């Protein structure tokens, strides 16, 4: 089963998207953010919170912001202090918290000896490399498509119970959904947590606890179970680093989601995203983009092309971060209205189009959510169609739909029903796609061509106006956002001349050499 596409149009789309991403990259390269700086600190080994429960990485960055010059970057100051005091980064952070060190005192015209940071970075990098090696050992067992379910009890210990049950019923990927509102926090909470709403706090300890539980169940099930969290919100790159260190396997990571749905400032999140994608590329963590969300507010039929256009842009953003296509979990969703005539055929056109446009990307396919209702039987049917569409268009990361989507975050039994549904469809439709051809000129064929053409037109427009303008116009999800508004803008700064980000430099170098 293949669509016959005009690959000249496809190439033109890619070229447009490359130009669009390059325009943004120019801005990115000139800026850093408080989150980026905190991430560098984490990579240097700074961890933990002070007596007021403030993470030391925040203590340091806030200190620099208020007393020194953040535009020079944390690496500048830490290199200077280490040169003089021979303290570990952690010790420096603690000293700052205790106010026994003032970084302003270390400001000086000499160039900092950034190399002094290398041993600390190497420790963390070694840890990440060890995690990659562990993952690789298992990876051979990984099967496609991968069944992805969420846990969202708000309590990491209940999440673990739920995750184990899901893994035993055949889930390949467990995503721990994050508590509502965490993305707006400009720090990462600390320790094991049991009190989230609609999700559980993303903390390094929670990552560790869940990874440990999944490693155990991977052993008993003899199948590697992947762990997912969100590198999004105001701490996007920090969480990417935490995920790299704790062996998360996948990260939701998409500025556009934050801009549109969380009102995060666009400059802030583009800069943060670039760093987090470099880290994820280095750590071989698959990212998931959020195009699916557009269709939760805009109609899936009318706005299908916005998803495709955004996928092209996200692909180029990932490329700029040296990310290989095999880590680009571009998102889309079965949000077609079930009341639409020929809904299934239209959806197949769309899903197969994504599949063919990004043949090497592990596409992330989201289930029906918007059109789910309290009718759990109807919901089961909707999920069945979604599962069929996923199998026959060969999606990779297959998020399972919950029959109670419109009611509550999933119960343990909801997930089991979802897994049964997907398993059944995989079996029943195993070779179905291979037995059929899509007729040229048919509804599916024409629909796919229309969507591709519309995406091309949209990309042309965006290329001309720039992505900032597009976001202001509300092209994606019908939500309009301004460059000068949104959360986290005050954490964005222009880099000084002396600014250096040794983490990014080292990682990019390693990615380029292919030694990572």
């Amino acid at each position, binding site marked *: 089963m293949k669509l016959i596409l005009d690959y000249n149009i496809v190439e033109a789309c890619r070229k447009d998207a490359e130009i669009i991403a390059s325009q943004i990259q120019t801005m990115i390269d000139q800026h850093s953010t408080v989150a980026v700086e905190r991430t560098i600190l984490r990579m240097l080994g700074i961890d933990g919170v002070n007596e007021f429960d403030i993470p030391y990485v925040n203590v340091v960055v806030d200190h620099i912001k208020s007393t020194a010059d953040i535009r020079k970057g944390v690496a500048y100051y830490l290199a200077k202090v280490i040169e003089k005091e021979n303290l570990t980064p952690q010790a420096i952070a603690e000293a700052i918290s205790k106010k026994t060190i003032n970084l302003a005192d270390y400001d000086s015209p000499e160039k900092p000896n950034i190399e002094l940071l290398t041993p600390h970075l190497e420790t963390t990098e070694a840890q990440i490399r060890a995690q990659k090696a562990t993952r690789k050992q298992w990876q051979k067992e990984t099967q496609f498509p991968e069944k992805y379910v969420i846990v969202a009890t708000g309590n990491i210990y209940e999440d673990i119970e*739920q995750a184990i049950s899901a893994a035993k019923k055949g889930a390949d990927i467990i995503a721990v959904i994050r508590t509502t509102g965490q993305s707006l926090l400009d720090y990462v909470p600390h320790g094991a947590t049991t009190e989230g709403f609609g999700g559980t706090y993303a903390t390094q300890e929670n990552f560790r606890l869940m990874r440990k539980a999944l490693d155990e169940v991977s052993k008993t099930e003899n199948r590697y179970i992947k762990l997912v969290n969100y590198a999004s919100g105001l701490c996007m790159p920090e969480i990417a680093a935490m995920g790299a260190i704790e062996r998360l396997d996948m990260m939701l990571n998409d500025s556009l989601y934050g801009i549109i749905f969380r009102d995060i400032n666009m400059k802030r999140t583009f800069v943060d995203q670039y760093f987090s994608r470099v880290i994820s590329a280095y750590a071989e963590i698959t990212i998931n983009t959020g195009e699916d969300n557009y269709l939760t507010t805009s109609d899936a039929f009318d706005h299908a092309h916005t998803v495709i256009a955004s996928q092209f842009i996200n692909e180029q953003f990932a490329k700029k971060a040296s990310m290989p296509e095999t880590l680009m979990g571009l998102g889309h969703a079965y949000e077609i209205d079930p009341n639409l005539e020929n809904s299934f055929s239209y959806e197949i056109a769309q899903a197969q189009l994504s599949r063919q446009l990004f043949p090497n990307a592990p596409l992330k396919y989201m289930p029906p959510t918007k059109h789910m209702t309290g*009718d*759990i039987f109807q919901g089961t049917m909707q999920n069945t169609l979604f599962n069929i569409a996923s199998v026959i268009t060969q999606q990779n990361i297959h998020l399972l739909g919950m029959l109670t989507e419109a009611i509550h975050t*999933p119960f343990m039994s909801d997930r089991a029903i979802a897994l049964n549904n997907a398993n059944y469809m995989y079996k029943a439709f195993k070779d179905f796609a291979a037995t059929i051809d899509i007729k040229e000129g048919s509804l599916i064929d024409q629909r796919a061509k229309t969507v591709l053409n519309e995406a091309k037109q949209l990309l042309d427009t965006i290329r001309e106006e720039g992505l900032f303008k597009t976001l202001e116009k509300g092209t994606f999800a019908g939500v309009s956002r301004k460059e000068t508004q949104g959360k986290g803008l005050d954490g964005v700064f222009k880099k000084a001349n002396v600014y250096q980000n040794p983490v990014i430099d080292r990682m990019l170098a390693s990615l380029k050499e292919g030694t990572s």
Partner: protein
Amino acid sequence: MSRFIRPYGDTMNDGKVQLSFTLPVENNAHGEACAKAYAETLKIHDVAVVHAETLSEEYTFFVVYGTASEQLDPSTIKATEVESDVMDKAEIEAFIEKNFNRTLTFIGASTGTDAHTVGIDAIMNMKGYSGHYGLERYKHINAINLGSQVDNEALLEAAIEHQADVILISQTVTQKDVHIQNLTAFIELLEAENKRDDFIVIIGGARISHHLAKELGYDAGFGPKKFAFHVASFAVQALLEKEKNV
């Protein structure tokens, strides 16, 4: 160990349950309020009527989620289970060889107007079911399957004629408890004819449990996912027991 449990949604003992039912009410706010109130009579609180569907002017179907606060101590619950050891085919054959000096006769039927034979065939016929051979294939067992729609009287007659050791009865149709009527009638017939002690009498079917069988006066009952070896394991041990007591 005694502990108390409640249903589990996503947090231990959160009591989450799902219900669905139809009420003879209109589909409107009042109907929904009735659904909520009805769920409350079933000791469900925090009731969310998540779906209401018109079936006709006077009937509405509801899907409801809520919290059941009743708790249960699992250690107080006893499952009525067949108590004999479960043996496999070879062990059963060896058991018969060791304990009986004869071939055992099992006679079976789907009785009354019940035309469902797949269940009784699953237990009795050569081929068996789900990869478990049927009694016909067992050494030292003579399996006679009378098929379906067999009258109680005809079954008893045949059992007497073949000097059966074990009688197997299958009942699949249960609407309006027709199976209970039919099974009760057979026990009454056995007793009327003074034959209750001549046979081990076993029943089975999709809605048959051991519990029900005992209540009705049968020796054992087997439901779904029970196969010939389960039935034979019980039967040969029960027979031995019975013959010892004679």
